[in-house]
């Protein structure tokens, strides 16, 4: 049985909040672009390719994947605990591990160009 304060907890709350703010500010506009502007034909395949092949865009997107995934990991873990599917303190690695794996995958994808 683990005792004493959980020294890692503040870090995960910080990343949860950072990801929550980033997604609150940026996600609706991003969904608008890929979900409305692209199907409507306002953004052509060349436009989108140029945007996604830009180094700065790729760097920012990897950063956003990192923040979004840590936001998800934290909030979803607590939601599943509230729903009685997991116990807090158990399986935490599964959520943050998935977030880390996704970030690494995004990093590798960004470096493919």
């Amino acid at each position, binding site marked *: 049985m683990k005792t004493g304060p959980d020294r890692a907890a503040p870090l995960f709350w910080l990343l949860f*909040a950072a*990801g*929550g*703010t980033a*997604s*609150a*500010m*940026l*996600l*609706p*506009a*991003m*969904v*608008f*672009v*890929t*979900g*409305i*502007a*692209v*199907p409507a034909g*306002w*953004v052509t*395949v060349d*436009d*989108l*390719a140029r*945007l*996604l*092949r830009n180094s700065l865009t*790729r760097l920012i*997107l*990897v950063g*956003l*994947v990192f923040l*979004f*995934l840590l*936001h*998800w990991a934290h*909030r*979803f873990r*607590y*939601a599943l605990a*509230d*729903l*009685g599917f997991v116990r807090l303190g158990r399986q935490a690695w599964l959520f943050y591990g998935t977030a880390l794996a*996704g970030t690494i*995958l*995004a990093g590798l*994808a*960004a470096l*493919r*160009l």
Partner: protein
Amino acid sequence: MTKQLTRPLPRTWWLRKAPYLKFMIRELTSVAVFAYTLLLIWALWSAADAGSFLGFYDFLRTPLSVWLHAVVLLLALYHTGTWIALTPKVMVLWRDDEQVEPDFIAGVNGILFLFVSGVLVWLVFA
């Protein structure tokens, strides 16, 4: 023999009252955030070669993608709304002896959201 002193909570507790349901929807907006990161990873991965990028672009134009985006957009907007509504509780500001109006703090964040969204869309179209 040990006696259980906490009352067992049924898994459907969040369906009992509207505020509970709204709380659970708010928490589950994180699933939409997760789903969209998968799309971002696919976007980054496919951009490397023209063939797979065309596959990604064509997927965005399918009805399935449009419907999924519609669901994600609703949840994303709910997340933005609830997140901004919480900002005055997270940052309690004081100007001299007076507390800055909570509505003012949330309002500023709302305007920031509209501004940032406008800039992002403008950057994509420019």
